[in-house]
């Protein structure tokens, strides 16, 4: 009798799905992290320190896009003898973040319920 083994999933499919899953979460994380003021590099470090590594080439354009959407405010300021652009969550961003977190929790609860039901079967 031959042993049947599970076929190994395609890593490219996982990477693509992981990217999709992370995309929305990253925005929530960035907005939440910017309740305190940061410039690009320190924001990236802060996120990475909390387990959410994000590429510079993704983060820096994202900050600009969120600012264009008026969810962030920014200002150039000198720190350590260098000019840096500091970002902070705007009042509008606060409201959107609250809505996103409510949505996040709702999705999380639903997925947990689905998982519990499927485990019981």
């Amino acid at each position, binding site marked *: 009798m031959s042993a049947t083994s599970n076929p190994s999933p395609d890593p490219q499919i996982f990477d693509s799905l992981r990217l999709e899953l992370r995309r929305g979460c990253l925005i929530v994380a960035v907005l939440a992290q910017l309740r305190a003021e940061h410039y690009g590099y320190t924001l990236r470090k802060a996120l990475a320190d909390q387990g959410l590594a994000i590429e510079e080439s993704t983060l820096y354009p994202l900050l600009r896009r969120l600012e264009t959407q008026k969810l962030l405010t920014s200002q150039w300021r000198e720190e350590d003898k*260098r*000019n840096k652009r500091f970002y902070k969550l705007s009042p509008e961003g606060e409201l959107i973040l609250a809505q996103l977190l409510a949505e996040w929790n709702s999705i999380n609860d639903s997925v947990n319920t689905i998982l519990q039901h499927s485990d019981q079967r």
Partner: protein
Amino acid sequence: MNPTSNLLARYLQAIGEHLPAATRDDMLAELRANLQAQLDDRAEELNRPLTDPEVAAILKEHGRPILVAARYLPQQYLIGPAIFPYYLMTLRKAAPFALLIIFLANCSNLLFIHTFPELIAGILRALGLLIPDLIMFAAWLTGAFVIAEYVYTRNHAKPFNASWDPTKLPAIKPQFKGKSRASRIADLIFHCFWIIYILEIPSHHFLILGPSELYLRRLAITFAPIWHTYYVFLLVLLAVQLVTKILALNPTFDRLQSTFDLVTKLVGVASTAFLAAMKTYFVASGPAANQATLAAVNHGIGIAFRIVLILTVIDLFVEAWKLFRPSLRSKGLAF
């Protein structure tokens, strides 16, 4: 200028070439501050200034300049996701008609060709022109949809979705079940009668000419010798068809039926091409024949055969497309 700032400046300059002028300086200043902070951090970790390769490694990790710049720009596409399905649908639906029209246009000069080699060369030339003409058609269609996309995004319009109504969807298509055994037997019987009819023609010309046989006899016109050659060709074709129709009675040959049909059509095209290339279909059977009438009749029949040839070639391609489409589709070569 130290190596760090030199490499960084070159990197930023390369990115700047792909950024819009209005925001370029601001974007580059921010990027410089972030990258400089990263380089400073790394130097602090190593407790020494960074070497050129170390700076290059950090910049390489940050990404190729053109791609880094692209991320700062809004998403760009010639045909966006809202329009693309309509573009693909139009391409699929229009391509067969475009193929047909292009082929017919390319075949128009076949009507004025007189020799068999020229005829074959003309058909091959018409087929050869299909691909570049089809590419040209696709290019024009793509151009039209690029303009549609431009208008759509500029006006923030919803051009196609508003009129959609689920109740207007087409009815469910009946599933194709193939020919029944009874219809295959009937087909075989009909084919046998058809062979008997063809076999009787040499001794009874009226079977093919009808009352006009008397008219031709009065004009002193009769069949040209070419028909004797063609007659043998026709009998071979009928015999091949007879074999395939007998084989078709056995369900194990079901899968081969389309191939049989295609081969039969191919032989049919070859025989039509043979006839189309001939100049003389009727000859004088006596001195009373009017040569001008004879020439006009032969010319008319020649043109008719060429038109039939073009139609049979198109039919052959349609059948071949139907036969090979599923396997091409599975290989991603057809839609």
